[in-house]
């Protein structure tokens, strides 16, 4: 046999373990301290996962024949962590050419090869909500992915059946990108101010509403009149109409209390009631109002002061929101921070005196509810997905270390077998030793060409900071 072919075969066998389909989705975890999040803490408990689903939780469970067992004595088992705000696993993040780009979707640019998936799973994260950036007031639709590392087809990492969500953004980012753009030959457009942001939201919803009405009228007429004329097709307004129909959950990048309240009023005008405010550093100021509206919040534990609108912040934000009845999660918005979301939850707990379950719920069941996937993930319950994170000590301890991560019962991360090179996609031409950057929340460009294109527009703007915070970028 040709030497090269032989090498291929050996190599394919060697990486075979990475292919999710190729391995069993059955595992029995024994004798763990199980943090179910929704049903308290169970000592010396076994968790059995079959066909990727949690089948049994109890003591001295019978092991099905041939199942792989893991002795978790002295270890802590919690539901896989859910990151409600990420920009990993994407080929592009911002279509920053227009203030409203509801029609674009992260579904179309999902990148299963992104090493960020593996790195996040090494921090116990099993689900990420990968989002459009914050350059536009109505950015693109987001995608909820499972960390099935090793998959190469983008469809294989989607969380099947997850509700559609869309990214909105208020404040400094969209006003800077659109309203203060001076170079590149294209002048500034609305919005330059927070007032303009509101106006863009109103007109986008109004156009969507008219579009929906036009199609409703057409559909009614077409039932009797074969010569009825359908309205001009509009991908953007199709999505706006779906938001109005309640088919898409809104996740809005926001900081200031006034703009947060503004958006609840705009949404109220159009009957849209499912909203999660992302970042929301000043949400604590309007916590009762948010609770009344039924809005959710997804915040940082203590990350702020990276631009003017993020100075008025407090590490009590999460706790104040929780205590006021606002369903709250802690997110990363970062390909680094997502590896220690359990620390972030612990910080919020320490500052705001939250219980263990409250703190853990902010990185498990609460983000699951915000993404509409709470029936599948977010807690350890029979019938839920076998997404499990195992820690060597309590995950809210500063000394804890994640040791194992399962997605659908498949072992994705194993600290004992964490090889030097876990990449699936290897650039054959890059210089070894050269740092290969990946897209994070702060590096929202698709390619060098795209960066060059965008830079030509933004050259007069001192700082490009699409999602607002730059400290992890340097």
């Amino acid at each position, binding site marked *: 046999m*040709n*030497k*090269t*072919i032989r*090498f*291929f075969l050996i*190599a394919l066998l*060697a990486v075979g373990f990475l292919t999710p389909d190729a391995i069993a989705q059955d595992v029995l975890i024994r004798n763990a301290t199980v943090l179910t999040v929704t049903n308290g803490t169970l000592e010396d408990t076994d968790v059995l996962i079959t066909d990727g689903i949690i089948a049994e939780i109890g003591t001295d469970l019978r092991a099905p024949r041939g199942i792989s067992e893991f002795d978790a004595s002295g270890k802590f088992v919690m539901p896989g962590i859910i990151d409600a705000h990420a920009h990993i696993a994407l*080929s*592009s993040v*911002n*279509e*920053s*050419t*227009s*203030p*409203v*780009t509801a*029609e*674009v*979707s992260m579904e*179309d*640019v999902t990148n299963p090869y992104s090493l960020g998936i593996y790195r996040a799973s090494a921090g116990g994260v099993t689900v990420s909500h990968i989002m459009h950036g914050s350059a536009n007031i109505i950015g*693109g639709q987001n995608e909820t992915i499972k960390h099935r590392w090793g998959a*190469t*087809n*983008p*469809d294989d990492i989607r969380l099947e059946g997850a509700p559609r969500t869309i990214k909105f953004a208020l404040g400094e980012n969209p006003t800077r990108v659109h309203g203060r753009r001076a170079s*590149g*030959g*294209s*002048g500034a*457009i609305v919005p330059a101010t927070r007032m303009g942001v509101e106006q863009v939201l109103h007109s986008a919803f109004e156009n969507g509403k008219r579009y929906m009405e036009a199609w409703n009228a057409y559909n009614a007429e077409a039932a009797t009149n074969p*010569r009825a*004329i*359908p309205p*001009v*097709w*509009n*991908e953007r307004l199709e999505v706006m109409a779906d938001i109005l129909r309640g088919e898409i959950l809104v996740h809005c990048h926001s900081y200031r209390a006034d703009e947060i309240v503004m958006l609840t009023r705009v949404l109220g005008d159009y009957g849209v009631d499912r909203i999660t405010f992302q970042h929301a550093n000043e949400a604590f100021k309007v916590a009762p109002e948010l609770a009344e509206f039924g809005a959710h919040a997804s915040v940082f534990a203590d990350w702020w002061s990276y631009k003017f609108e993020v100075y008025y912040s407090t590490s009590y934000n999460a706790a104040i929101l929780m205590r006021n009845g606002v369903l709250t999660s802690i997110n990363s918005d970062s390909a680094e921070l997502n590896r220690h979301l359990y620390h972030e939850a612990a910080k919020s707990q320490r500052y705001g005196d939250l219980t263990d379950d409250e703190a853990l719920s902010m990185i498990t069941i609460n983000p699951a509810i915000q993404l509409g996937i709470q029936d599948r993930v977010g807690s350890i319950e029979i019938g839920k997905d076998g997404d499990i994170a195992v820690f060597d000590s309590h995950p809210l301890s500063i000394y804890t270390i994640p040791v194992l991560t399962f997605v659908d019962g498949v072992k994705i991360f194993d600290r004992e077998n*964490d*090889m*030097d*090179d876990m*990449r699936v*996609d*290897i*650039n*054959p*031409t*890059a*210089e*070894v030793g050269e740092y290969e950057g990946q897209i994070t929340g702060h590096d929202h460009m*698709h390619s060098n*060409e*795209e960066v060059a*294109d*965008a830079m*030509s*527009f933004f050259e007069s703007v001192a700082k490009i900071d699409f999602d607002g915070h730059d400290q992890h970028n340097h």
Partner: protein
Amino acid sequence: MSSSSASLTTGQPKPDLLYVDTWRTSRHRTHLDALKGLDAGGMLGTPSRAHLSPTLMPSFRGIRLGAAMLAALIWLSSVPDKAFGQKNSPDIPVVSNVVAIENARIVQAPGRVIESGTVVFRDGVITAVGRRVDVPYDAHVIAGDSLTVYAGFIDALSHVGIPAPRNQGQPESVPDRSNPPFDRAGITPEASARPALNPEHDDLEKLRLAGFTTVMVAPRGRMLPGQATMALSSGTNGSDMILQGMQPMFFQFRGAQGVYPGTPMAIMSKFRQLFREADRRMKLEAMYAEDPNGLTRPPFDAVHEAFFPVISRERHVLVWTDEVLEIHRAMSLQEDLGFSMILAGLSGGFDTVDKVSSSGLPIALTLDLPDKPRFAAKIKQDSLQHILDSYNEETRTATYRDVEAEKDNLEARQLWSRNRYVGTAALYEEAGVPFAFTTMGVEPGDVHENLREMIAAGLSSDAALAALTTNAAALLNASGRMGSVETGKMANLVVTEGDVFDQDSSVKMIFVAGQLHEPSREGSGNRSGRESDETIPNR
């Protein structure tokens, strides 16, 4: 003949201008008229450069001519291009446009070989192929001993023949970058590659020397630059290159500069938008044409109109996919909208074999391969294999303890990764997926070396040849005219010494619709003083 060509292609001095070939066994004695006839019949060189070509007819057994002949040749050289380029030129009568290649190894199609036979073609069309073929009395005969005749190669997608525009600097500014004019957004599907074709484009000559006689030429641009066209790899002018046939809409994931659509996700949305609105307009147009009573005139623009034949599946969309995620994107659009698609490129397609295979889509794989990593560029193949074999997937090195060991291992993995690109064509062959090849983005001079690498990685020679000939012809819906050496097909031929995929082989002659091109004189065609073998691909 073969000896003369061999010496030409190994960089020996050019034949003395005073020697003029008789094609050794030509039934015509060489004299001025015959030479004129030969040329007017399209035998000599690139037509546009024909004023140089006759003087370089290979000759080592040719008869020495006197000073009068030389003078005649100089006269010939001074005749303007077109006089030679046009067939049946009124100024220079055609004596004969029949060629016979005798006693050659003829690879009619992959796996169909005549070990010693004759090909005859007249007026650019093959009239006979076989072991025993009557050679017409008026044929120019080429002794094919030691030569192999293949069908001319077909490139399923390239920009060749369309010179790249000069750097235009900053793009034009627009009042509203969210809604730019179509052309500023790179959306001109109504345009065509045809008016931009230029037979003088350097890469065209290089591609011809690599054995390509037919190319699907796509216009340059961004998202939807226009319709591609089938073209011959030579012609007296752009129009002369054009072949009737499929003109697919060319589409790529290349965003506009600074305006919508800039990213691949917006390109996806924009394509859906254009398609679905065009679908609406097409129906309105049909209603209006039938009976305009009670209707307003449907909106019209050339961009949406260009989608009509795509929607009715009368026109393919030819999609360039530069990386594996673009394969998924293209297939996702095709699934959503249901148009006829040809996938080209598929770099990284080693991960999509099953998906592409079950889709049944026609594909053209890239002939490009990633460059070898720098550390490997000067290492011999055996040593590279040694590095590959040393790869240890299990390594867990504390970097600060042994940086070199980790680096070595990462380098071995890079070689492994590159091999996956090299082995992609073999994987598709193994899966039973027929494919053509595209030279998009490939240096034409690298084509044969890349093919040899793919064959070394498991691709069969027959599959490689099929990709270059029969499969490509089928993909472009041109099997009736080209792709094999058969009676009734166009005389698009590559004549080599040795097997075309052997390292030691060389391309001796290329016939494009019966017109002869030879490496030796192509190289000197418009670059006097250059070594002739510089442009020969198999070196």
